[in-house]
C-alpha cells in the first residue's frame, strides 16, 4: 500500500489556500506544512521571551482554523514545524481552536531541538571559525532534529504533530518510515524518502512556482498554482502530481530546478537521517503534470547534529528616494554621495545602491541606455535602533537638502538577527513528546 503525502506550505509566509484545497480534494494520508526558515526561530524565541505562551508561528492560528475541519473530516494527519520556539504552546493553541470549532483532535508536540541551555557557546562557529558567543548576544540555539523525533509522535495516533526545528525533509521522511517500517539501516530507502521530501519541502516550487519566465518558460494559470503531492511506494519510488484544475506545472524542468535547490553537494546531501546521493536518482515524466522518481542511494546518518544559533546583530537602517526623467542617474548618484558624506563618520559600513541600474546583482551585465527612473537606496547597520534611523532620516532630508526632483522617500528600521552554526553530539539531545487531546461532545 502506498501513501500520499501533500505539501501545504513551503515557508512561513506561504499562501494558505493550496493546503486547504489539498486537504479537501487531495485524498491525502498526510499533509506537511514546512514553515520555519533559519532565522524564523530566532525571531520566535524573542517573542517567547516577551510572552511565554507565544513563540510558535504567527500564522499557526490562521492555518489551523482553516485546515482543521477538512483534515478532521478526511482523516488527514498533519505534520508541521509551526511550533517554532514553542511547540507546546502551539499545540495548546490548536486545542483552543478545536474546542471553539467543536472538533475532536489529538495533538502531539515534539520538543528537544532547543539546546540554548546546554550548548557550549565557546565552540567555534562553522561560518567564522571563532567562538559562537563572539558573534553577538545569543538569543536562540536549535538543533536540527530528524525523523526519529517524529516517529514516536506518529505512534501516538495524533492527528496533528507539531515540532520546532526539524530538518525539512525529515518532516516527510517520518511518515514514510512509520508507514513502511523502514529503519535507519535501510540507507537507500531513507535516501529515496529524503529526496522525495526535499522535492516537496518548498511547496509550489516543485509545481511551477518560482519558475515562469514569459516567452521562455511558460506556466499555465500561475495565479491558481496548485501544490504538489507524492504517492510513495514501499521501495522508495514515488509519483508526483497536483490536483486537476489547478495551475502550475510538474515536469522534468521544474523537478530538476527543485532537486538542486539549496544543495551544497549533490553527492552528499546531509540530513540528521541520512547522507543522500542526489546523482543516483532517476526522474521520468509519465503523463502531463505527473513525474516519477526512482532509484537513489544513501550512506548512514551523521553522528553529530547541526545547531543553528541566532544572535543579536544590531539594527538595519534603510532609506530610499526616486529620481526620474533626463539626468535621473546623475541626480541619484549625487544624492548618494551627499548622504555618504553626511553620515560616513557615524557608520562602519554603508551600502549605496541604485535600484533600476544595479542594485539586485550589485553589478549590471547590460550596457543600457539611461533608465527613465532610478531609486537611490542607502543601507547601514548600527548597534542601536536610534542610530539606525539616521539613515532613513538623512535620505528623507534629501527632499530639501539634495538634488532636484527627488520623490517618494521611504525609511525603514528593522532588527537584525544573525545566524551562525555548529554541531552537537546526538547523545546530548533529549527528544520528548507531549500529547494533548480534545474530545468534542
Amino acid at each position, binding site marked *: 500500500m502506498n501513501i500520499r503525502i501533500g505539501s501545504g506550505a513551503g515557508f512561513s509566509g506561504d499562501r494558505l489556500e493550496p493546503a486547504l484545497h489539498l486537504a479537501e480534494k487531495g485524498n491525502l494520508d498526510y499533509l506537511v506544512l514546512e514553515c520555519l526558515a*533559519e*532565522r524564523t526561530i530566532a525571531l520566535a524565541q524573542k517573542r517567547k521571551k516577551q510572552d511565554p505562551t507565544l513563540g510558535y508561528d504567527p500564522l499557526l492560528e490562521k492555518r489551523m482554523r482553516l485546515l482543521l475541519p477538512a483534515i478532521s473530516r478526511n482523516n488527514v494527519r498533519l505534520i508541521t514545524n509551526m511550533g517554532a520556539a514553542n511547540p507546546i504552546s502551539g499545540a495548546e493553541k490548536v486545542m483552543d481552536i478545536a474546542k471553539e470549532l467543536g472538533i475532536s483532535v489529538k495533538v502531539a508536540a515534539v520538543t528537544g531541538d532547543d539546546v540554548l541551555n546546554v550548548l557550549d557557546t565557546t565552540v567555534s562557529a*562553522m*561560518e567564522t571559525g571563532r567562538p559562537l558567543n563572539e558573534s553577538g548576544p545569543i538569543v536562540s540555539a536549535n538543533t536540527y532534529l530528524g525523523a526519529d523525533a517524529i516517529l514516536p509522535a506518529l505512534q501516538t495516533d495524533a492527528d496533528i504533530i507539531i515540532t520546532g526545528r526539524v530538518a525539512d525533509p525529515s518532516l516527510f521522511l517520518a511518515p514514510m518510515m512509520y508507514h513502511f517500517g523502514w529503519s535507519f539501516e535501510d540507507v537507500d530507502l531513507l535516501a529515496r524518502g529524503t529526496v522525495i521530501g526535499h522535492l516537496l519541502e518548498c511547496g509550489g516550487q516543485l509545481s511551477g512556482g*518560482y*519558475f515562469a*519566465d514569459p516567452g*521562455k*518558460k511558460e506556466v499555465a494559470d500561475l495565479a491558481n498554482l496548485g501544490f504538489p503531492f507524492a504517492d510513495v511506494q514501499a521501495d522508495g519510488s514515488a509519483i508526483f502530481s497536483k490536483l486537476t484544475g489547478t495551475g502550475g506545472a510538474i515536469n*522534468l*524542468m521544474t523537478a*530538476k*530546478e*527543485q*532537486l*538542486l*535547490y*539549496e*544543495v*551544497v*553537494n*549533490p*553527492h552528499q546531501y546531509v540530513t540528521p537521517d541520512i547522507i543522500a546521493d*542526489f*546523482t*543516483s*536518482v*532517476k*526522474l521520468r515524466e509519465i503523463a502531463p503534470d505527473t513525474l516519477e522518481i526512482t532509484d537513489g542511494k544513501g550512506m548512514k546518518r551523521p553522528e553529530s547534529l547541526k545547531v543553528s544559533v541566532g544572535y543579536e*546583530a544590531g539594527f*538595519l537602517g534603510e532609506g530610499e528616494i526616486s529620481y526620474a526623467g533626463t539626468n535621473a542617474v546623475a541626480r541619484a548618484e549625487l544624492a548618494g554621495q551627499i548622504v555618504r558624506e553626511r553620515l560616513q563618520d557615524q557608520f562602519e*559600513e*554603508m*551600502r549605496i*545602491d541604485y*535600484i533600476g541600474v544595479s*542594485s*539586485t*546583482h*550589485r*553589478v549590471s*551585465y*547590460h550596457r543600457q541606455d539611461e533608465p527613465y527612473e532610478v531609486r537611490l*537606496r542607502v*543601507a*547601514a*547597520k548600527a548597534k542601536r535602533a536610534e542610530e539606525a534611523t539616521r539613515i532613513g532620516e538623512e535620505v528623507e532630508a534629501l527632499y530639501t537638502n539634495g538634488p532636484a526632483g527627488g520623490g517618494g522617500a521611504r525609511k525603514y528600521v528593522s532588527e*537584525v*538577527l*544573525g*545566524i551562525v*552554526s555548529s554541531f552537537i553530539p546526538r547523545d546530548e539531545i533529549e527528544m520528548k513528546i507531549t500529547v494533548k487531546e480534545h474530545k468534542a461532545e
Partner: protein
Amino acid sequence: MKKLYELAHSRAGDKGNILMLSLIPYEEKDYERLREKVTADAVKEHLAGIVDGEIIRYEVPNIAAFQFVCQNALLGGVTTSLGMDTHGKSLSAALLEMEIDM
C-alpha cells in the same frame, strides 16, 4: 556567441554566505557542450563582481545538469547582508547572462 539564457535555465539557493546556482540545459544534448564551456573558472570570471570566494562545479549527469557552489557570495549571508537581494535569489539570472561560443 550565445547567452546561457538561450540554452539553459537556473535556480539560485543559499546557505549562509554560500550561493548555489544550478544550470540546466533545455536540451539534454547541450550538456556536453556546456560541460566543456561553462567551467568553474569561466563562471568565476563571469561572476567576478559578485562572488569573492572559490567556485566548485558539480556535474549531475543523471539529470543532465550542473551545480555551481560559490563561497563568499552573499555579502555575509542573508541574515546580516546590507544588499537588496539578501538571499541572492535573483543571481540565477546573473549566471544566465554569461556568453559562450557555440
